[in-house]
């Protein structure tokens, strides 16, 4: 009998704790599929954050370090110097982790051009702690710490990480993708694959931002939240390649 679909070897059998409709499950699967397809599950090391994906070590079937909030890029930078250069190292982080408390670690790992891959899930909200304002919450978007909607005059402005990091010399590849429909899931997989391929070729840091949803804290159904990502999220955070040194080389 021909197998036409299978669970990636890199995912454990542990049931995901994520809310119904959450994009984390999709992106976990894509990371696992890509490393499977590249034959790089063996030797892979993941660094997971504090936030909704804190339990990543239960799902990824590879060596995993659970980092303090925001510190995954620093943890990964040190591991890069210790282990075999052919081992794939990735961090998997949310927006509060990567763009707020861990902004310095993110920017400096990018400045150093560490040969690692950063998977950044941007859903514009603190999910696990219950829907507080994130560094990527959009103007007007409601959160439990800006209940009338984010007012830049009161709450400050959100940050576009890909655009900011693209100004640095260090990163090799920066792309923003989304997973609101199947074609975009496929594009996200291609981006993640390119990111790991560049790490395999020792080209330097690859950074993939996934514009994602949080149905629970958006107070929406799964479908509504994906529609919101498509219409509002991807309007404010435009998809595309922000840096690619392989193109610059040509």
């Amino acid at each position, binding site marked *: 009998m021909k197998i036409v679909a299978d669970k990636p070897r890199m995912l454990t059998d542990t049931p995901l704790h994520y809310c119904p409709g959450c994009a984390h499950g999709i992106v976990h699967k894509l990371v696992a599929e890509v490393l499977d397809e590249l034959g790089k599950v063996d030797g892979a090391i993941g660094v997971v954050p504090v936030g909704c994906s804190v339990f990543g070590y239960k799902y990824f079937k590879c060596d995993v370090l659970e980092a303090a909030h925001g510190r995954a890029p620093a943890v990964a930078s040190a591991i890069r110097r*210790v282990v075999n250069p052919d081992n794939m*190292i990735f961090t998997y982080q949310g927006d509060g982790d990567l763009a707020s408390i861990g902004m310095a670690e993110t920017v*400096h790992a990018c400045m150093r051009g560490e040969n690692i891959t950063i998977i950044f899930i941007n859903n514009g909200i603190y999910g696990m702690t219950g829907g507080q304002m994130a560094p990527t919450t959009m103007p007007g978007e409601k959160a439990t710490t800006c209940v009338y909607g984010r007012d830049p005059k009161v709450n400050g402005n959100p940050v576009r990480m890909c655009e900011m990091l693209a100004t640095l010399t260090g990163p090799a590849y920066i792309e923003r993708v989304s997973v609101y429909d199947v074609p975009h899931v496929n594009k996200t997989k291609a981006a993640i694959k390119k990111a790991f391929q560049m790490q395999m070729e020792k080209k330097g840091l690859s950074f993939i931002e996934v514009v994602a949803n949080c149905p629970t804290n958006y107070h929406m159904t799964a479908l509504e939240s994906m529609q919101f990502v498509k219409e509002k999220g991807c309007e404010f955070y435009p998809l595309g390649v922000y840096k690619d040194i392989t193109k610059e080389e040509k």
Partner: protein
Amino acid sequence: MKKLWKGNEAIAEAAVAAGCRYFFGYPITPQNEIPEYLSWRLPEVGGAFIQAESEVSAINMVYGAAGAGARCMTSSSSPGISLKQEGISYIAGAELPCVIVNIMRSGPGLGGIQPAQGDYFQATKGGGHGDYHPIVYAPCSIQEFVDITYSAFDIADKYRTPVMIIGDGMLGQMMEPAEIPPMRDLSTLPDKNDWAACGHSDGIPRIINSLRIEADENEEFNLRLFEKYAVIAQNETKHEYYEIDDAEIVFVAYGSVARICKAAVVELRANGIKAGLIRPITLYPYPTDAVAEVAKKDCVKKFITVEMSMGQMVEDVRLAVNGLKPVEFYGRCGGNVMMPADLVKYVKEGK
């Protein structure tokens, strides 16, 4: 062969000799010679140095390197050590071995860059959040700094625990003759393959983690951690007695202050006053029994705890003496250092 070494550089070379190959740090006075030295020395021996973007990042790099199974260290000075506390708590929570050096300066806040011992509570009582203790050593000479740094990595590996070595600006900056032990053969270092997350291909994930979200699981972990600390206390507690046999006045002091006390003991004895000194070498575990034994002696009239602080270790001395004898405190702080004559005067005149 003995060579003249600056304290901070001796610590750095002793770490290299001990097999430490990774250092992560951030500039702060008066410990800068440690990162400066290791920035060129570690690449010479196949290791790596990162000047981190912050103390917070540096200690988390230690978490990563230690989690991947490497011998690694960081160093800083008081305000920087405060920033590292979150990471030290995680390192204790994930049971990772590493060495942290604190060349103390005066506080609170930015304080000053002169020597002080105001970080005793922070070092010995946990410092970061949660129930944990690093093993804390307080050497008093450059040679002792070298010897303790050299063995600290083995101790850290043996118990899978962070080890902190504390000195002060005086010890870090001064020069003394010291002999660096021979370079460790790296093939003799402990095998960490069963737990280190260094990228295995045997299908058995190694997880480095301090999240134990179930109360029972986390309580069980805390209990196990403290069983480990009891074993550490049994095996690793260290102190030095100096002129203690017939002592009536007993100083208790650690680090550079202990050496000042030794000079005072000599001078007091020349004046017919029987003084002695207990010098804790480990501050955690504290040599409680060594102090308690002396407290039981009939000849002992009182203890004087001497510190470059407003009085921190004195609390552990009082716990150890347990009311058997008076425990007094003499301290200087803010970066000021007491002279032996100050202690002689205090003993003779009570001030």
